[in-house]
């Protein structure tokens, strides 16, 4: 059975890998987009905090015997609180300076955090077992679908959908969108915007940690896992349109798929396809696919 010139199982297999990568891209770029929208900084610490999310899950299990399901909730909370502390005590004091300082500060933080974990855990990585309920898989006839991989896609779609709902359909989300446009005026209505900024950073970072926990059983829990993925995620945020929630989610999944499909037809290009797309998008639509032109 051939599909566009390749055996269908090969195509479907790469499509699945693409979807899974896309799931991580989507959750990570969504967090970045949230943070960029309200804080106007590119959060270079995002990859490091994704890695911390995975490590927190690993440590919860290794040290306290707390398993995957509680970790899926606990790790984002722990990392989210850590992120709120970063915002409150490091980013807020420099919020009035050029945004470049925020970028440099988060970049420095990323190096610090990664260095710290490398010092303790080395670069070989720790393994994290797939939880019992998600082991095994389904035989779809044309391919084998591991249960855990299906779960990753479902979980990412649900979390992205819930975040989109929060931002686009609730009072709180409307306040956040308004604060992105004109923080001063929202403050003059009596909204504690600095608190809203802290919570937003915490939420963005918690999403990164959630992705980290999802990743732990698939990839090895490794201090460098964040820096490996984050450059691609930055490209995706740019393609989707800086600060666009819908753009971040959709381009995350789409580019994951594009990567997978490229791997079928021209494997050599699979590592650069996202950057090629980014270049083309920047030429044709500089504000990104879903960005608002100023």
């Amino acid at each position, binding site marked *: 059975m051939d599909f566009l010139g390749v055996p269908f199982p090969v195509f479907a297999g790469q499509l699945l890998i693409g979807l899974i990568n896309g799931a991580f891209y989507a959750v990570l770029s969504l967090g970045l987009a949230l943070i960029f929208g309200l804080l106007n900084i590119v959060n270079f610490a995002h990859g490091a905090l994704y890695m911390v999310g995975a490590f927190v899950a690993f440590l919860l299990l290794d040290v306290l015997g707390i398993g995957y399901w509680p970790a899926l909730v606990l790790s984002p909370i722990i990392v989210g609180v850590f992120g709120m502390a970063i915002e409150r005590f490091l980013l807020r004091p420099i919020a009035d300076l050029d945004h470049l300082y925020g970028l440099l500060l988060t970049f420095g933080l990323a190096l610090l955090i990664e260095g710290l974990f490398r010092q303790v855990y080395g670069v070989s990585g720790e393994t994290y077992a797939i939880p019992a309920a998600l082991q095994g898989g389904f035989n779809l006839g044309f391919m084998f679908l591991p249960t855990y991989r299906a779960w990753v896609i479902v979980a990412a779609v649900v979390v992205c959908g819930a975040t989109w709902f929060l931002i686009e359909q609730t009072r709180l989300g*409307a306040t956040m969108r308004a604060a992105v446009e004109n923080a001063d*005026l929202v403050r*003059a*209505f*009596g909204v504690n915007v600095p608190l809203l900024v802290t919570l937003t950073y915490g939420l963005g970072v918690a999403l990164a940690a959630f992705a980290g926990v999802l990743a732990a059983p698939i990839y090895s829990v490794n201090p460098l896992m964040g820096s490996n993925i984050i450059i691609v995620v930055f490209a995706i945020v740019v393609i989707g349109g800086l600060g666009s929630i819908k753009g971040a989610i959709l381009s995350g999944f789409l580019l994951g798929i594009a990567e997978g499909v490229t791997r079928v037809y021209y494997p050599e290009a699979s590592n650069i396809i996202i950057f090629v797309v980014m270049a083309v998008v920047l030429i044709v639509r500089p504000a990104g696919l879903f960005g608002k032109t100023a």
Partner: protein
Amino acid sequence: MTEPVLTVEGLEAWYGESHILHGVSFEVPPGQIVTLLGRNGAGKTTTLRSIMGLVKKRKGSVRHQGEELIALPANRIARSGIAYCPEERGIFSSLNVKENLQLPPTIADGGMSLDRVYELFPILKTRGASQGTKLSGGEQQMLAIARILRTGARILLLDEPTEGLAPVIVQQIGTIITRLKEEGFTILLVEQNFRFAEKTGDLHYVVEHGEVVDRFERAQVAGNRDKITRYLGV
């Protein structure tokens, strides 16, 4: 004279290095419409923004029913019961009309219900799902005023609500402002349009070079028309 609800004393403000307000002082009695008149660049808008806490560097005193506001952040000032409608109207383009209307949080009991707001501004009810900035200028101005009536704030700071609007809309806004006064709101109005201010205002202050230089009550306006016209350069 009744105790003023808002007392501004020696208010100074800076934008970066530029010293804009050099000691603005005036009082707003309860339930009245008080206007700040003056030429472009005299410091009227800056006065409102400073009262609201939106100008970072400011000093002097702003007291709202005895409470000193000068050192508070904007959100705390708003929660003391003051609502602000900026000159540029500040309608959010990423929010639809209804979301814009519901954005300012309730800060005290006694604000208008949504139904009551729609009664005053029927046009807004029919436009609920439109993007806020797709409205006409007059509709945007009405939305900007409407959304601060729900919050329970009793003092409204309105910055040039008639700017750039057609005469018939200016008239409608005038009617609405007068009705708000009847409902017990205290209004501090910045206005370039003296004819509008004269009709609606109870008490007028003239701002020049970042200071209040003169004061006229409604009854004194007719006898001082020449003087006022000179102040405003019209």
